[in-house]
């Protein structure tokens, strides 16, 4: 019981999310600077949340570079100047599309999300969604629902056990679970609405909000796995979200329509991390999605050698039919550009070697050794020349 409780609580603490209101219980927004009274269940949740924050801060996985931290924090303050002082952001090196908001006011933003946002406006929409969870107090509401539903179930199952109809209890459990799921979907819709309103009011182009979903939808469809992106599991259907957001964007009057997109700034800030994040992404082995993502990046940011290099890496790792040829093309494109990594030669050699193209493999390995005479794997690659 204790175990289960710990896990349930930790699940609820971080409302994953990305972003309309239905009939929800009447809960007052959290006020700037507000802390729950120490005698409340909410204070207990804050305490657990603060514990998570301390551990995260010391995990060694949080990006410490001031520039990118300032970038994300500035967006939050622009979206919500009144809550700016209450919200702490941690950019966590994790190659998945996600962000989560915790009840005590700290937010995790994963690098996989920043990599996939095409511009500042799209990122602002997601951050706004997360802020919506915070000041609508979704965490505590979710916890109360879980707690009270579980308690009701316990009494119900004991009562049915007494009446000798144990099975009915199980059906009760299913109903209760269903109730929980729909609850969280309503929270997501509400946060979607809040996120949209904030980004739109802050002067960002409202048309960008649905675009981040469209891009993710493409990745999901390519993977053929509806649950591949964590995000989709507990959230409203992506198609529904896109339709809702498109509707909201169209409804914004021309006089109030922001034009800020911030594609260049986003590209500039994220550029120093690109190689690291792309490598992390390929390590996930969700290659169909990564392929869509990489091609989108190439389309948006132009022909950068590292993008072509990682596209080559993707095809080399996947190794399906025709991938060897695609890999060779991508590496060759990368190497034709200024600033291509020397590793592109090595990878090119590996693909040719696998394909039995001995002369091409030899030329590529030799080029690698020339380009990287101090590489720590020099002797290894040199030994490949003997094995060819």
């Amino acid at each position: 019981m204790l175990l289960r409780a710990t896990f349930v609580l930790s699940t609820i603490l971080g409302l994953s999310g990305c972003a309309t209101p239905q009939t929800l219980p009447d809960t007052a927004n959290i006020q700037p600077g507000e802390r729950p009274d120490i005698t409340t269940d909410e204070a207990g949740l804050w305490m657990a949340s603060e514990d998570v924050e301390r551990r995260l801060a010391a995990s060694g996985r949080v990006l410490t570079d001031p520039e990118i931290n300032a970038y994300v924090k500035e967006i939050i303050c622009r979206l919500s100047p009144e809550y700016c002082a209450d919200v702490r952001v941690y950019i966590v090196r994790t190659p998945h599309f996600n962000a989560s908001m915790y009840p005590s006011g700290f937010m995790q933003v994963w690098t996989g999300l920043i990599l996939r946002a095409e511009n500042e406006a799209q990122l602002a929409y997601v951050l706004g969604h997360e802020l919506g969870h915070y000041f609508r107090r979704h965490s505590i509401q979710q916890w109360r629902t879980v707690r009270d539903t579980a308690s009701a179930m316990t009494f119900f199952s004991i009562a049915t056990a007494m009446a000798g109809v144990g099975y009915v209890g199980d059906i009760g459990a299913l109903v209760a679970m269903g109730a929980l799921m729909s609850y969280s979907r309503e929270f997501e819709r509400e946060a979607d609405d809040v996120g949209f309103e904030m980004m739109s009011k802050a002067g960002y182009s409202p048309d960008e909000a649905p675009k981040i979903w469209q891009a993710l939808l493409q990745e999901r469809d390519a993977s053929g796995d509806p649950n591949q992106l964590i995000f989709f599991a507990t959230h409203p259907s992506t198609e529904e979200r896109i339709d809702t957001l498109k509707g909201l964007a169209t409804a914004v009057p021309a006089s109030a329509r922001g034009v800020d997109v911030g594609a260049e700034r986003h590209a500039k800030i994220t550029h120093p991390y690109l190689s690291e994040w792309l490598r992390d992404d390929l390590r996930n082995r969700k290659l169909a999605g990564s392929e869509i993502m990489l091609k989108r990046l190439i389309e948006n940011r132009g022909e950068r050698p590292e993008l072509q290099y990682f596209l080559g890496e993707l095809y080399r790792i996947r190794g399906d039919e025709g991938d060897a040829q695609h890999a060779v093309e991508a590496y060759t494109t990368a190497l034709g550009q200024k600033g291509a990594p020397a590793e592109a030669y090595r990878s090119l050699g590996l693909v040719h070697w696998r394909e039995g193209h001995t002369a091409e493999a030899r030329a590529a390995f030799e080029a690698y050794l020339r380009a990287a005479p101090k590489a720590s794997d020099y002797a290894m690659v040199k030994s490949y020349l003997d094995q060819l």
Partner: protein
Amino acid sequence: MNPDQKSLPSSSFLVERSRFLVALVFFGLVIILSGCAQTQALKAKSAMTERINPAVVLLIEPDVQLSVVTASGLQEPNAEWTEIGRRNVAQALEALLKEKNASLIAYRAPQNDLDRAHRHNQIMKMHGAVGVSILNHKYNEMLALPTKVDRFDWTLGPDTQMLRDEFGADYALFVFMRDSYASAGRVAVIAVAALLGVGMQGGMQLGFASLVDLQTGEVVWFNRLISGAGDLRTPEPARQAIDSLLTDAPL
């Protein structure tokens, strides 16, 4: 929350602090709880022969959390009780160490010095990994390590000298306590279940403490507490819990 960390393989490279709880609870579930506290201390060889007295003890902020057990058995952390519990634990520790003629220094994390803070953090994380290893391999028969059967020789390594130098302390003391209490709803469930002849768990007290020689990094003493009774919300029972946990500490 972080789905990446949820699916741990058995050959995991991870050490999660929450696993303290998992490791502790595992035994809590296996052992049928009696009303009284159960402790089981381990001592390093050096602790049997050498003893620094009077010792200076660096107290790492005790990790204490008090919760309510809801009717269904979920644990809800309670901030007010935790604050009271932390205070009671701190006072009980102070009183006990005084009786043992040891002086106490409270640990403070380095401020505005990222490098030093990082190195301190590594020591704390090392203690986490060592603590879980001790709980796993010394308290759980199924995971017993044959070479360790007659030995208790874990260490945090010589990096702990840094703490010795900074704080002028001989030992570091780590204390971890979790205490939970049945809510009114839970009590009702237990009563109904009892009518049906089913025993259900109310609250539970779990904890451990370790004493680390900062000169060598050696864990000189370790103890674990599991109890179906006890109450950290009131000073006297808190004192009893800390006493049974630490009485035996070689100070």
